[in-house]
């Protein structure tokens, strides 16, 4: 007998990581790099610039099939690539096209839809946003009310979507709309529909977030005419389409890259600030506080690796992958929280680049941004409801 279990990356995988890291260091312009490390991360224009550089390298869509522009990497390389990308500066708006609507169009779309939409997503020529939530349909998404009325070859769409992140910069929105108000179950009668944001009657109102980045919008639809060819996955099949996304790349939800990024930042801040005339990073008390979170990060990382190990073998991850979002979002909040604590009075700073704390210490807006991590994409309360039912099979009332 001897151990086969192996928790490390292979030499080839490590070399791949080095290659990715080296390219990113070289290819990312200094301005982008600084912006990515700053308070708010990349803004839209910067994100587009970075998208195009990655596209030019052929690395924009590692998880797409090779023939559609993907890289052909296995799950482990995709994981590594993603972690490295998130360390230097994650794309934000691109994800909605590349990881959300893109894969759904591949799975459920018509040939015409694939040819029309996918290349532009890939090249960064069209950006997308998501129209799921409504003011009275948040956690209870199935209660959505936005209507798409049959008008022959097109629909007339009316209603309001909320939390349509980046809608102010997007070209298209993918929506869930109610096409059969009479359906017995409210999950039925919903259709997945693509809408061009330039269509008359669409009105996008950006909102400031807690962290003051204008990431959210309310999007209003007033008698908007949408051709029926924009249905994806068939009339009244929207719930099935939307659910299909849940299985994709669960390890992304673990926020491994962002957590490692904050951990580095945290240590950097602790190495520059002093307490009793020595760097906080050398003070046992503060080291211990950081160590506790780093140890938790390691445990969380191992859950991710277990999922990755399954994916790499082409298997579905085990049930433990269901906790990745729950644990990862809590962890990144604790990390940003500790970074604020290490900063002491400097945690007061708010977009004062150059005035007081150096840009690397300007964690406040990012700290605020991550408060939404436990809310978006199914709040942690909803996650617990689902895990209780699906994984632990606890009784319903």
């Amino acid at each position, binding site marked *: 007998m001897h151990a086969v279990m192996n928790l490390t990356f292979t030499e080839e995988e490590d070399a791949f990581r080095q290659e990715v890291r080296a390219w990113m260091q070289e290819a990312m312009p200094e301005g982008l790099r600084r912006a990515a490390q700053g308070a708010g991360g990349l803004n839209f224009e910067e994100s587009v610039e970075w998208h195009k550089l990655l596209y030019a390298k052929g690395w924009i869509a590692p998880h797409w099939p090779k023939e559609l522009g993907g890289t052909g990497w296995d799950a482990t390389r995709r994981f590594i690539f993603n972690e490295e990308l998130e360390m230097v500066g994650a794309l934000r708006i691109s994800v909605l096209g590349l990881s959300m609507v893109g894969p759904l169009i591949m799975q459920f779309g018509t040939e015409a839809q694939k040819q029309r939409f996918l290349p532009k997503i890939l090249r960064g020529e069209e950006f997308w946003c998501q129209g799921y939530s409504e003011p009275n349909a948040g956690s209870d998404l199935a209660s959505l009310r936005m209507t798409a009325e049959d008008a022959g070859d097109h629909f007339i769409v009316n209603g309001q979507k909320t939390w349509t992140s980046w809608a102010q910069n997007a070209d298209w929105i993918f929506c869930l709309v109610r096409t059969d108000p009479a359906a017995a179950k409210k999950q039925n009668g919903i259709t997945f529909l693509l809408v061009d944001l330039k269509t008359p009657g669409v009105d996008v109102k950006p909102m400031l977030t807690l962290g003051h980045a204008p990431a959210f919008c309310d999007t209003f639809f007033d008698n908007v005419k949408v051709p029926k060819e924009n249905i994806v996955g068939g009339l009244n099949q929207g719930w099935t389409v939307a659910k299909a996304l849940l299985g994709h790349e669960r390890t992304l939800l673990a926020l491994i890259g962002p957590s490692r990024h904050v951990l580095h930042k945290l240590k950097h801040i602790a190495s520059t600030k002093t307490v009793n005339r020595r760097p906080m990073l050398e003070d046992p008390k503060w080291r211990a506080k950081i160590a506790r979170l780093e140890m938790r990060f390691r445990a969380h990382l191992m859950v991710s690796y277990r999922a990755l190990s399954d994916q790499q073998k082409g298997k579905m991850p085990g049930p433990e992958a269901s906790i990745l979002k729950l644990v990862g979002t809590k962890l990144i909040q604790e990390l940003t929280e500790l970074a604020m604590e290490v900063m002491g009075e400097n945690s007061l700073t*708010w977009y004062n680049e150059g005035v007081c704390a150096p840009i690397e210490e300007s964690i406040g807006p990012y700290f605020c941004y991550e408060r939404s991590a436990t809310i978006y994409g199914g709040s942690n309360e909803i996650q617990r409801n689902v895990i209780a039912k699906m994984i632990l099979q606890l009784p319903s009332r």
Partner: protein
Amino acid sequence: MDFELDQEQQMLAKTVSDFAKNESPVERFRKLRDDGTGYDPAVWRKMGELGWLGVPFVESVGGFGGSFIECAIVLENLATTLVPEPYLASVVLGGMTLARAGNATQHESYLTPMIEGESTLALAYSEAQSRYDVSAIETTATPDGSGYRLLGEKVWVLNGHRADHLIVSAKASGGVTLFVVPREAEGVNVTVAKTIDGQEAAFIKLDNVAVADDARLGEEGSGAVVLDRTMDYAAAAAVAEGVGIATTMLQMTVDYLGTREQFGVKIGSFQALQHRAVDMYAESELLRSISMASMVRADEEDPRTRRGDISAAKYQLATGGIWVAQQSLQLHGGIGVTDEHDIGLYFKRMYALNALFGDQEHHVARFASEPSSF
């Protein structure tokens, strides 16, 4: 033992609370934040007329001879709608320091006008390296003729960009010493920095600022003891504000839980959220209770009886108070993380209060080092 406010205190609380609700609702704070005005000297003057700025000071300087309890009452109630006038900065930091350190002439020149609402004060005590230690400063006061020259840099001076007078700490040959400096004096260079709670503070460079001997507050070397005392007042003040913030956030959250519907029912009927709300209630009542202890203790001369409850209170703000803020935001779901909704404004103010006047570790270490606690 009596935890009840007396009638005058109850009336003060009601007056301030009514003022906050009716004359300075949160929209006012938001408007002054967004247009960059910060706060309104006319409202400050009104607070002076109402007597709020003088509650902790003796009658001889124009005060009302109250105790710090009255100060805390004003702060808690102003906090309920985030009233932006610089009560903490001017009355507690500036005023309490000046009251203890200054002589009668200095009180008349700087404290009385502030109490009347005619001017405001700021305390420039913190430096980049100080981390809550008021003695760990590098600003120097060098003798120059009959006065001094001040050289150094101060950070995060609350109200430092608007105050009429700054109280500045500097190292003279006798040790940490306090000086009154007009904000507009030659060599005082002020940079305004935005703070996370939608307010502003000043970074102040003192570039060989000339001050006369009568600008010195007390003897050389007397500053550290006074500042140490002020920090206790300030910590108790932050906690009093924190009580106002926490109870307001809790109430907003309970209201939201009783209104918002999902899955066909009020979300406040979900047991997991109910239990969370109960724990928030517990933390906020613990904060209120220990805040009472800290506001009473703040006036104690003997540090051994003063410090324990103040540190315990600031610690409860850092743990329970912050937790209430986090959970309030979480239970508001998506709207909680927009700038449009008020809950986030309170959330960020709680973090600012947490970062000021000693963080959690500072107060744990201080409490743990007191022989009287052990």
